[in-house]
């Protein structure tokens, strides 16, 4: 058990971070906080990939032909560069939507927005 924790501790902590992020997105009502939770979740995912790519005694994958280094795996780094950019794109779009929602509904709390939404439905029924 202790051996396992010693050899996998980094993964286990990444899992904890992922779960906290996921919990924030799923449980919170506030739209901004959901986005922050999402980015915590995604950053934990980045950490997971980079942890995968790490080699003990390795160095950053920038080749120096004169010295015989061990290099870390560059592929996860590339994937995560892509994922980081996707993450900021999601955050930006989510924030833009949050601003519009705040203007349209006067709130960024999900339960209040849902109440306003239900009201819209009632107005429609009354009209028809």
């Amino acid at each position: 058990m202790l051996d396992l924790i010693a050899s996998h501790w980094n993964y286990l902590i990444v899992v904890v971070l992922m779960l906290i992020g996921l919990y924030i997105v799923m449980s919170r009502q506030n739209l901004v906080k959901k986005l922050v939770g999402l980015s915590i979740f995604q950053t934990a995912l980045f950490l997971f990939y980079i942890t995968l790519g790490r080699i003990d005694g390795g160095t950053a994958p920038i080749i120096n032909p004169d010295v015989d280094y061990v290099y870390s795996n560059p592929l996860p780094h590339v994937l995560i560069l892509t994922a980081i950019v996707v993450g900021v794109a999601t955050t930006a779009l989510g924030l833009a939507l949050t601003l519009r929602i705040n203007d349209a509904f006067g709130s960024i709390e999900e339960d209040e927005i849902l109440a306003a939404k239900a009201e819209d439905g009632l107005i429609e029924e009354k009209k028809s």
Partner: protein
Amino acid sequence: MIMTNIPGLIVVVPLLSAVIVALMPSGGVAWVLTLLATIATFALTVINATTGDGATVSYALGGWPPPWGIEFISDGASRLMALIISFLSVASTLYANVLIKKEIHEKDQARVYGAWLLTIGGLLGLVMTGDAFNLFVFLEISSLASVTLVAMGAGVDRRALIAGYNYLVIGAIGATFYVIGVGFCYAVTGTLNMADLAVRLPGATAAPVFVGLAFMVAGIMVKAAAFPVHMWLPAAYGYAPSAVSSLLAAIATKASIYVLARVVFTIFGGLPDVTDLLLNWVILPLSVMAMFAGTILAIYEHDLKKLLAQSSIAQIGYITLAFAIGTTSSISAGFIHMANHAMIKGGLFMAVGALMVTIGKRVTMSSIEGLGRAMPWTCSAMLVCGLSLIGLPLTAGFISKIYLVLATLDAGMNVITGLILLSSALSVLYLWKIVEVMWMRPYKGKALAENILIYGPLWLVAIANIVFGIYAKPIVDLADAAARAITGGAL
């Protein structure tokens, strides 16, 4: 030069045209360019599907051989899907012209068409790619673009904004789950290429592979709006601008379901024990629940757009059910239904959109009273698609139901056959309600003008429903090839 590069061009053409279209000064010019781009893409997919000897073609992007580079795969399955997506995007684009003008401010139209093409290009990339991580990139292109499109419905109804937000956040969670799954598979195999993964996964450490499969499937089910993670779909399709609803309903979830099949049958094709477990004990029961939940919710729904969206959940259930049975004939039936349902739902959403802009308010059971007389062209096309939805003979829907029922009987799953028939019978209820209100009641309002630019494309889709209901051979053949390709001939 063009011939050898077709698999790449199918994706590149819409994506790069999107960038140009978004810069256009007026919506009219942007629409013409969008139409040209979708027609060109359609032509490419037709050439892609008709030339060649049916063998799998691998297209190495950047000239790097897989698994080091990214490859596109053109096989029976991706050919059929690309064909469906590009055909319906042509029809939806034709139809969009008038509706986008009505629902979106003139200054915004060019950019909306840009996002429109990005959605199409992203979905095409989703079906063409043979690389597990590249798939994620396309998932995000299509989802960011379609979230924007859905949220543009705020010009008609503010609830589109919250629908867009939920679509974005739930979709992002789904995509992140998918990437976690890919990460596990990469950690134990060292590759991201789908074909290479299929070879190396059976020999890899078991636990990360199983969990990787679970996460990938869960993530994609969110994107495909499979029961029980479908909650974003009714609002997103219900409040999106009408043109956008018809585009997304026709093709967006289909591409995700296809990806689900790719993951289960191609990437994890070497582990039939594990995937059978998943299909029989998770996807099959969930599909059956989806069939009934979607249908029953649709029966109680008054808003027609949302009713159609609920019915989509049930129809997605039919498709995943067909895949879950897992025989070649059932997978083929799944593909047939995917093609037909794209035409059916595309047509129905088009019709409801046409009604909505004509009567100028949300289309509910009470606002369509007697419209059959006031808008005969639109309503009769809607009737055709509706009959196809419940599976009346001589319509495309009939063909899907027949093949689905035959496949379940073949597999010896008589209970499932009964459930399919029962759920189809239930779907008659909501359709009959629409028909009754629309055609049997007198019309009281003022005269309404129909626009051929709107009902023309709608009839194009409706006629496709009839044509492929009578002459089903092309779709059935393509679907057979697709089923064989996606299982790698293993079954």
